[in-house]
């Protein structure tokens, strides 16, 4: 919201003015209204350990985050470029492996990645697309530039929260919507559907799309049901599916019905007990064979996890140069790879200044923020890095941009990141905005919801800044307060 010099960024002036006008009870009322709307709509996530309340209302902060149109265009171009390169990388790794043979990416890192699936070698998915839905985590550096912190190409969640946040905010801050021209998000479900239809194997008039969910006790079940509903797809669980005559079918009140495209929200390991984990009951036996034979499409493809492995991440800019012959539009955060000797030496000497990440962990687990660590924690990580360098990378601790956030009824600055969603169909498209995650604990840099993180709506502004309130907006004020 603020420039490096401490002034208010121009696009934020109208919001800042509106916030300044609000009294603390008004602020609190906004928060309560938002919470109530979310709870009644069932926008909750599941906490597995806490027996008293298994369902928690999703921690939402009603102060929106603003991004100008010009800035967004750059992000959008950068994401399209990056996702294109990642898909080419996946196709190459499971195909000719040119990038490994040319020594651009170390083969050991690829084969050592926990997301690598040898079962995918030699198989080309429909239309050559591996990752159809991507959620890329971005942060701003000290100069306000967006950098890529992480790629999520397996089955990223959170898009439904973006859609719900927007609906709630439209009711909480009506006037501001009228002042700012905010780019709408309404197309997401249609785009998602188009991306899935793009890989439908049959020439059927209306291919059957299903969303495969682990079921209602999964933490992202709300999202699964929302996306299925908005797309007009059938939400299925593994037990609803059966493979007969090489085709995947679902059990319906009319008998078995053929399925064409599966948007799966079940991890690779659980997809098919015949090929992957034999104890899985979330998938469907024979699914992978049907997929390989081309009778059904899966989005995202199995094995995409090799591309968002934290040890592969440092090579994405090189991939862009290698496959596209272009310079990356969005840069990575500077990363040290512990399996490289020079880097390892640097990491071990600077543990206290770096953010160290375990390459096969996610959700804010397996991470050390050096500047906020104890001497014992640092020793522990030094030992772990030396024992298994492949499993660690390190990045300088970046002070994530801070954004005004309601904390205990008052406004205070909290760290934020941004996860926009990219859909790969016939065209590659980015939804304007995305999920702004906020670290609700003071001073915390971890934004994951499993670690006390919350969410904000993200407004991409169509015009240059805020319009002056129209007459209609004045009369709407009574509705707002």
């Amino acid at each position, binding site marked *: 919201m603020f420039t490096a010099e401490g002034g208010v960024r121009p696009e934020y002036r109208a919001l800042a003015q509106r916030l300044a006008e609000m009294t603390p009870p008004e602020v609190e009322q906004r928060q309560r209204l938002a919470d109530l709307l979310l709870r009644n709509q069932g926008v909750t996530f599941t906490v597995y350990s806490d027996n008293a309340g298994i369902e928690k209302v999703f921690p939402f902060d009603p102060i929106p985050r603003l991004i100008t149109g010009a800035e967004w265009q750059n992000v959008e171009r950068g994401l399209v470029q990056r996702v294109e390169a990642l898909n080419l990388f996946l196709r190459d790794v499971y195909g000719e492996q040119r990038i490994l043979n040319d020594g651009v990416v170390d083969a050991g890192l690829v084969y050592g990645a926990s997301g690598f699936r040898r079962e995918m070698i030699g198989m080309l998915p429909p239309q050559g697309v591996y990752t159809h839905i991507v959620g890329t985590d971005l942060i701003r550096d000290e100069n306000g530039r967006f950098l890529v912190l992480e790629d999520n190409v397996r089955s990223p969640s959170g898009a439904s929260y973006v859609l719900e946040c927007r609906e709630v905010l439209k009711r909480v801050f009506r006037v501001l919507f009228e002042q700012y021209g905010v780019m709408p998000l309404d197309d997401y479900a249609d785009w998602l559907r188009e991306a899935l239809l793009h890989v439908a194997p049959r020439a059927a008039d209306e291919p059957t799309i299903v969303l495969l969910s682990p079921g209602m006790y999964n933490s992202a079940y709300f999202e699964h049901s929302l996306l299925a509903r908005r797309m007009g797809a059938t939400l299925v669980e593994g037990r609803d599916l059966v493979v007969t005559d090489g085709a995947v079918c679902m*059990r319906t*009140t009319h008998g078995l019905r053929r399925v064409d495209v599966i948007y799966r929200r079940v991890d690779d390991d659980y997809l098919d007990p015949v090929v992957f984990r034999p104890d899985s009951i979330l998938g469907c036996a024979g699914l992978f064979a049907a997929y390989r034979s081309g009778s059904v499409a899966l989005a995202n493809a199995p094995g995409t996890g090799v591309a968002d492995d934290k040890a592969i991440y440092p090579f994405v800019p090189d991939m862009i140069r290698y496959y596209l012959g272009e310079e990356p539009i969005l840069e990575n955060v500077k990363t040290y790879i512990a399996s490289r000797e020079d880097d390892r030496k640097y990491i071990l000497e600077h543990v206290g200044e770096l953010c160290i990440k375990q390459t096969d962990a996610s959700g804010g687990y397996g991470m050390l923020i050096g500047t906020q660590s104890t001497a014992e924690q640092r020793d522990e990580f030094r030992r772990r890095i030396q024992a298994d360098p492949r499993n660690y990378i390190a990045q300088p601790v970046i002070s994530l941009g801070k954004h005004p956030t309601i904390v205990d009824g008052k406004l205070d600055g909290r760290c934020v990141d941004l996860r926009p969603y990219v859909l790969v169909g016939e065209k590659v498209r980015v939804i304007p905005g995305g999920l702004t995650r906020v670290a609700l604990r003071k001073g915390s840099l971890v934004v994951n919801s499993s670690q006390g993180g919350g969410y904000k709506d993200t407004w991409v502004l169509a015009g240059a800044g805020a319009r002056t309130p129209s007459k209609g907006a004045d009369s709407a004020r009574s509705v707002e307060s």
Partner: protein
Amino acid sequence: MLSRVADASFWMGRYLERAEHVARVLEVTRAILIDLEQVDPDAASKQWQGALAALGLPDDSTEKLIFDQSTPTSLVCAISLARENARQVREVISTDMWEHLNQAYWSLHEAHARGVHESQLSQALNGIVTASLLWDGVADGTTARDEGWLFLKLGKFVERLDVTSRLIATRTETAVRATSPSSENVYWIALLRCLCSMEAYKKVHPQRVERRHVIDFLLFDAHFPRTVRYASTVAADFAKRLAEIHGARGKGVERAFGKLDARLEFTDVGEVERQGTPEFLRQLLEELTEACGLLQKSYFLQ
């Protein structure tokens, strides 16, 4: 439609209907006990136990019957199960239906959290009755008349058929053993009120409440939506409409519900009394169980 989804729609309808009955019966019975305890304390405790037995509830405090999550027949369990089933079919039902049911669920939890006081118990019970009635309206107003709607409604009326029959059966058993005519009269009034039928009954039989008329009305009246006959007619109609969609697969279910409805159509109260009302209802419930078994086999187990 997915078999699992059809199954969940059916049970969502059943559990919500059950919740409404539990709430209303508890509320009405509690009110009646206030009067009855003055006149006939023995009859009062029978009245209470009869109501609980018909609903499969243990003899426990009202608070527990409403809020105890470890009693599987408690009100909170019925609402939670309705909501769990709704969550399973979240993408099939309308957002309004979901939000409304979700609100009822949370309001019950809030009432519990606020602390339990007599007046709040009544409020919680009435809240659920109202929520269920409103939900019917929301469902009717926001859903396409497709398979899902038919399974949902079938569940609702199967449950109504079931609970209503059980309530009449236990009441006829207890009433036979009632000691004085005045307390017997209280039983029939209580039964009518538990089934939300007092006013409708009075329109047909304005004279003093009488056993034979009450049984006749609650079993056979074809126009009032809370009677056994009405519920069976609606269930048979929905089973028929499901068969129209599914062809041969649905014929058995259609026949089973049709037979049940025909039996009610062509029986009169005299016959029922000769056979014994509880016995007649026991047979009816057996037929209902069979019809539901067939429903499960034909549609839910694929």
